[in-house]
Structure formats: C-alpha cells, structure tokens
C-alpha cells in the first residue's frame, strides 16, 4: 500500500511562491488502478514526481509498506524506486542511444530482477518482436510508449506511475497503448496511478480523482 498523508508543495517562481497543494492525503491500494485528472498546471505531474521520490515534498509523509519515503535520502529513495515503481512519462521515456531491447531490460537489470520468461511474454504482448534491435529514433510515438510500458513492467515493480502516457499519441494509437497497459496491469496485479486528461479513460480505472485548487476530490 502506498499512503501519502499531509503532503504540501510549493514552487519558488520569479513571481513568488506558487503553492500547488497543502495537506493532501492519498492512498493507492495493491492491485488498484487510480486516475488523476485536473487542469493543466494544477500540479498533477508534481504529485506524481513526489510519490515516485523524484522530487521532495515540503511537508507530509509517504508510506510505502514499511518505508517512510520522506525520511529517506536521495540514494535510498532511488533504491525504493528501482524496486517498487515503474515510471512512465508523456514522452522521451527512452534512452536514445540504447536499442529497444536494452531499453526494455534497463530497470530490470538495475534491480537485478530480469526474468526471461516474463520478458518474452511481455515482448509478445506488446508486439515488439520485430523492433528489438532498433533505436528509439526509428520508432513511432506509439511504439516508443509501448517500449516504455514494457520497461516499467519488465522490472515487475508492484506500482506503476504514469504521467499522461498517451498524451502525445493520436486517438487510435492512444487507445491501443492504453488497452495494452490496462490488460498487463490486470494480468500482473500491479497498482496503477495514472495522470490523464481523458474522462473516458479515467472511467476504465477502478477509481478517479481530480486535483482542484490543491485538493483531491
């Protein structure tokens, strides 16, 4: 269970401090999928980064199983991330200089948790068999996002944090990629926390939240 309590965050901008949220509470249960919606600039990405330990919060606690993420240092948080979280951004998810295969197994290798059976299955499910030796620049946007999903799932992390993973794709591609992601998440019992703009998409998940004026509703 990933449990965030009393999270506050503000950014320093040239125009003064910009408060994104105060005293925010949120829980992500095992095998649960949650959609996060909200206006552009409301702080969705920032919240996701905080949950992933990529950015520190100003106040509050994030509890992950027996760990309190907020009391850990950068190195310890990185280790937690490696073992527990698969992060998918809107774009530029891949290491441009590594082949598709090396990208796929990257996090699994870091976490020393590469299972070849599972990887083969994943590659087949995502339809990446023909693309393994290519480089990211030789892939279409949809293909790139499929590789990003593959990378997150290959490491068999219990949580996937996705920031508008289909935001840069056209409708048909987006639908394809999303279906794959949801199917694989169901199959593996992974928890999914996904930032999205699409109402329709949000409805396909277990739960849907909206970030509005610093509060989750």
């Amino acid at each position: 269970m990933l449990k965030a309590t009393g999270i506050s965050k503000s950014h320093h901008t040239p125009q003064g401090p910009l408060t994104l949220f105060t005293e925010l509470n949120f829980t992500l249960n095992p095998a649960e999928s949650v959609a996060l919606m909200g206006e552009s600039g409301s702080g969705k990405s920032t919240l996701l980064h905080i949950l992933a330990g990529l950015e520190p919060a100003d106040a509050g606690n994030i509890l992950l199983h027996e760990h309190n993420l907020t009391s850990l240092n950068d190195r310890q948080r990185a280790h937690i991330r490696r073992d527990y979280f698969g992060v998918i951004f809107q774009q530029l998810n891949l290491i441009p200089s590594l082949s598709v295969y090396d990208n796929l197994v990257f996090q699994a290798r870091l976490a020393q948790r590469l299972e070849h059976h599972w990887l083969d299955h994943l590659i087949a499910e995502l339809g990446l068999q023909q693309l393994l030796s290519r480089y990211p620049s030789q892939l279409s946007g949809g293909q790139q996002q499929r590789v990003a999903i593959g990378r997150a799932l290959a490491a068999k992390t219990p949580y996937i944090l996705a920031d508008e993973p289909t935001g840069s794709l056209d409708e048909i591609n987006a639908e394809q990629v999303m279906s794959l992601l949801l199917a694989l998440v169901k199959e593996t019992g992974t928890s999914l926390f996904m930032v999205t703009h699409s109402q329709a998409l949000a409805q396909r998940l277990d739960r849907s939240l909206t970030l509005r004026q610093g509060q989750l509703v």
Partner: protein
Amino acid sequence: MLFQRSSVWVLHALLSHWWKHPVQLSTLMVGLVAATALWSGVQALNQQARMSYDQAAQRFNSLNQAQLTGINQQPIAQQDYVQLRRLGWPVTPLVEGQLTTDLSPQYSFTLVGIEPMTLLNTESAQAPATGLPTNLSLNQFLTPPWEVWLSARTKEAVLQAFEGVDTGFPLNPLGERPNLRVSNALADYEMMTDIYLAQYWLEMDQQHSRLLLLQDTFAQPLPNELSSRLRVIIPQSDHDISRLTESFHLNLTALSLLAYLVGLLMVYSAMHLAMNQRRSLYRVITACGIDQRHLMACVLTELLLLSALIALPGLLLGYWIASWLLPDLSTSLAGLYGAQVDANLSLTSRWWFQGLMMAWAGTLLASLLPLLRLLNNKPNNRPDANIIHFSGSVGSRLMTLALISATAALAVAYTGQSLLSGFLLLGLIFTTAALLLPLLVDKVLALGQALFSSALGQWLWADARLQISHLAIALIALLLALSTSIGVGGMVEGFRHTFVGWLDQRLAAEVYVRADSQQQADELYAWLDQHEQVKAILPSARADRVLHQTPIELRGIQVHATYVDHWPLLSRMDDAWSQIEDQGAVMINEQLARQLALNLGDSIPLSTDTSFSVVAIYSDYGNPKGQVMMSIETLYQHWPHAEQGSFALRVDPDQLDSLKDQLNEHFSLGDNQVLDQLAVKDFSIRLFERTFAATRALNLLVLGVASIALLSSLLTLSSLRLTQMAPVWASGVSRQQLMFFELMRLLFIALITAMLAIPLGLLISYCLVTVINVRAFGWALPWQIFPQQWFNLTLSALISALLAAIIPLLKLRFSSPGKLLKGFRDDQ
C-alpha cells in the same frame, strides 16, 4: 560502496551515447588527443633537452668552466700544479684521454681522472658540476683496487668490449682489476676514476691534461715563470648564446599550453553538447532508480575511462611529434652547447603518468560547467534547444566577466615584475578576448541586421546571430590560434630581422684571429702588419670583474670606423665614440643597463678610484652577462693584467681565403682561433632557423586543431540547421541559394574573427617582445609588424572555414526533401 552492479548498466547507457553520436565523439577525441599530444610532446622535448643539458653540464669540458691549460695543448706538469696550489690558486687537476680497445669492433672510451680531495673540498659556490655520484666513498675511490665509474649503458659496452671485466679489462698498477660502479650522472662512453689510475693507464705519469679553476672570479695574474707554459681561460661570454635555448623552451611550453587550451575548448564543446542531449537520458535513469550522486559518480567514471582511453593515442602522437621535432632541437643544442642529444627519445614512466594526469585534469576542467548543470537537473526540465541570445542577460554577464578580466590584466601589467606575471598577463588578455568575441560578433551581425530590411536579409542576419551560440567555442579556438600565430609569428620574424641586422653589425670585421699567448700575439701582429691585404688590425683585450656580486665582462677595443659605423647602439650621446677614445668613457650592453638601471650620462662604479661615464648602450642578444666596452688603452690603464683578446681584421673579401691559408701556414692555429665572419653568421642564422622551426610547426598544429574544432561544430550544427532552414526552403528559397547563403555567412563570421585576431595578435606580440622577453632574458626586441602575415592568416582562416563548411554543405545539398520536412513532423 559506490561501485554497484547497477553501475555497469548505467555506464553502458552513458557510453552508448557516444557510439550514437560519432561527431561528438570525434570532437572529443580530436580535442583531447590534440591537447595531450601537443602538451606531452613538448614536455618530452623539454625533458630530453634538459637531460642533455645536465649531461653536458656534468662533463668537465663544459664551455662555461674557467680553467688553465698548457700552451699549445701541452700537458701540465705536476710541479706547476703544486706551485699554483701553494700560491693559493683554487685549482683541481684533470687527466683525460681516450681508452681504446684493440679488439674489433673498436670501442673508445673517454677516460677522466679526477682528484676528489681538491675537487670536493671547495667552499666556492661555483664549484663545477663534477658528475660525481653522491654515494661515492672516498676511501674506496682513492685506494686499491680503485673504482671506475661509468653509466649503465657504458658498463654494458665495457662488458661486451672486454668480454667480461675479469678477462680483458685493464689492470691497475698492482695487477688487480678495479671495481666497476654505475653512475647516471656520467655521459655515455665516459669513465671516471682516480687521477692516479688514469695517469697510469694513459701513460701520463706526473702530468695533467688541464686544471679546473674552481672560482670563476679568481682573477690573479699567473706568476711569470708559469705564464710561459700555462694559459688561463675564462669562459667567453661573447659566444655563450645558451640563453637562446631558454627562450626556445619557454616558447615551446607557452605554445603547448595554448594548444592544450584549444584542445580543451573542443572537449568542452563536445561535453556541453553531450550533457545537454543526455538530459532525457538522465531523467530516465533517475526514474528507473538511480540517485543523483550515483549518477554523478557514473558520469565521472565514464569521463575518466573515456579520457584515459583517448589519452593513450594522444600520448603516442605526442611521442611521435617529439621525435619529429627532435632533430631540429638536437641541431640547436649541438650548435649552442656542443652537446649531442640522443636521437632516440627516452621517456620516463613519469612522462606517461603526467600525460594521463593532464588529460584527466583537462577533461574534468572542460566538463566542470556541464557537470554542475547536471547536478541541477530537475525531472521537469526538458532538453532545451540551447540557444543563447548574446544581447540578453548572458551578454551582460559575459561583459561583466570580460571587464573583470581586463581590469585584472591592467593591474598585472602595471604591478607585475616576474616572468610568471608576464604569462598571467597573456592568459588574462586571452580570457578577455575569448569572453568578448561572441559579443563583438553578435554586435557586428546586429548591425548587419539593422542595415538590411528585406525579409530574406532579416532572416540571413538573424539566423547568423542564432548560430553564434553554437559556434562560439569554435570561434574562440580559431581566435586564439590566429592571434597566437600573429603574435608568435611577429615575434619570431621580428627577432630574425633584428638578429640578422645585429649580427651584421657585430661581425663587421671579416676575420677574427685569437692568439694563444702574448708571444704569439706579437708575432701575429708583426706578420699581419706586413700584409697589404689586411687593411686594419684591431686588437682587443678583456678582463672579468664582479659588480654587485654578479660577474661582468670588460672589453677593450680600438676605436675604429669598423665599430663607429656598425656597432648596434640602442642609444648614444652625440660624441660617444670620441669620449670613449679620449676621455675614458664606456658603453654598456642593454642587459647591464636594465639590471643596474643605468642611463646615458650615469657613471658605473667599476673601480674605486675612477668613475666611468656611460655614453652609449648597445644591444647584445643572447648574452646572459653584463658587458662594458671601452677603449683598449683605458682597459690596460686600469687593469694592466687584462687578457689579450682576438684581433679583428679588415680584409678585402676576395683575399680572405688566401690570407687564411697563409695564416695557417705560418702559425699552427687551432680551429677556433681563426673565425671567419661569414661562417659565424651562417652558422648563427642556421641555428636560429632551426631553433624556431619547432615553434613554427607547433603554431601550425594549433591552427590545424582550431580548424578541426570549427569543422566539428559545423557538423554538429548541420542536422539542427536542416530543421532551421526548412521553413525558409518551404517558403520558396532554393537549396542552392540556401547553400550559398550558408557559405557566405560562415565566411563572413570567420572574417570577423580574423579581423579581431589581428589587433589581439599585435597586443600579444607586443607583450612577448616588451614584457616576456625582457623578464626572461633581460633584453627587449624592437616591436615590428608584418602585415603580410596578417593577410596570410586571414586567408588561412577563410580557407579553414571553407574546408570546414564543405561536408555540412554537401549534406544540405544531398539531403532529401523528406529530411527537411521531418522538422515539421515531429517536435522532438
């Protein structure tokens, strides 16, 4: 703890970047190879030269050693030596000769016998470098079976020549074999032993080859009965142009440092770009569970690994450059020192280590800024297009830095006295220029933009300004290379002009003849006086003095048109020559004038009872010593024991050879007793040329590296340029036209850079001539300018820009419309 299994995969991801960006990798490689090669190559040369200097100085026949020899190369008798010691002369005997094997191949060793008690027991600071090992035990050296010291290489040769020490090596008077000991202080094929053993082997019982005078300044006349057999030789400062080699090394080191910097600029440009392009890579790696510090450690490991790999070929290239330049160097040395430099470079492990360290230090220095920026990397940061507008805040920051640097330069120029501060001044000038360059180029382009109002014109100039941020580093490299070429080229050319003119003035007489003794001098004078081809015989004399603890030389000459018309005077009173002739006035060389802060009209305290008024100052390049010139009468009047110098003879050049033949017929004169003006000049000029050959070669290499820097920047830029030009192409400008604009723009930017390099180069040559040279050698050169050089260098800048543009232009020419259109399709 820092090295974890995961590091391997992070390194894999980091390194993979370079294989996908070969242009960046080659920029990095060329930069680092150039930096390492030029730096370490020059270090190798300097190291080799210094080793030779040491060996030369350690040999007893160093030219700078005061000594006594027998007249006409006769050995010196033991009782003469004993008499001198009794009179308090600080002398020590030497026995020298060739020890030749009668085996074939025939080896010949130079055997030197020394008397360590007198050689070592001297409190004089000017004790000669003896080549004596520090671990020498006097007891074993002086007693049977005695010791023979030699270099490791000579020992091998000895073992080979004598088929082992036990069989063939010469025996001592007691029929035993002496012990062989190895000393690195000895030159190859040189053996050193106790004087007694050397006398025995060379069959010079009770005889010495020469006596070393341990105190340079010990200037007493020889007792009468000895002066007919012995001669005191004080080193001739006239011919001591050893200081030139210092200038040589200084030049090389400064140039290699510059090459190193130009190389580092390329490394910086590659690193900057790589770090920027890898921002998304860093984000992914962080998201996958690597913390900032771990990532940083991996990037550092990557850099050290990469630079060590690249430094290796760099060092090999440096070795090659050094061996390529070594013949010139050894010719210079042979000319200046008579020292043979081994044609094979022998490099120490320290050299390799230092080269690697320099490569690492350089890489880290060049990556410092990009690395710091990496530390600041936030997950939200997107890789930016990295376009800097120099008119904005970046511009004013650069301006501030340039002002600070310029102020520091001014402060150093006014307060600094040392050579080091001279180099600091040069460094600050370079820094100021490098900071200002992008601003100035931007200003010029902005001016162009204001002048051309058509749509295409606007785009042309604005686009050129946009490119400056990408080209700035390469342009700075070009600026540095060009201005150094102008600076160093100007100095060398100026030096050549001055030096040749000076030689003409100094060597106005056709022949110089030196006598061995007073008797020979009288005979020579009488003989020459009878010969009609000899139009003038100008005697000279010399004496050594110590003034304010530094040795100076006094020279007496006969005032004659030969000197009056030619002597290279820097400043003089109107009646200088007549004052010298009639009133006992003197002239001094520039070094002495600077050292003692003497001006015309001042008097110089050469003796307590008389004051000598300075009426002229002359230039005396390459002479480390102060010198005072006066009429020969004045000299003998105050220093009656002054030594007879050479005769300068004015001869009809046609009759020169016949005179020399006749001289040789009548007198058995040694090689160095008759000096022919043309031969000396020819020798000096050739020496000069070779001394600066390496400087010129290095200069060219730096320019080459700068051109490559420009090429690699343009190549890196070319793919970016495609997307920048696509809209213009889409709006109806043909690709041919675009190519033409592209080329013109680049040539124009190169031209501006060259134009800025000229005043900078002049400033640098001014600094070299009036600051660095004065602080290093005590004399200034007249500052001269050579517009022909500027023209050539501007041309070479344009040509290198043209060459650098060819590949990117061809890329544009043959790029498919699809490639140009790609810019419209995806926004990555």
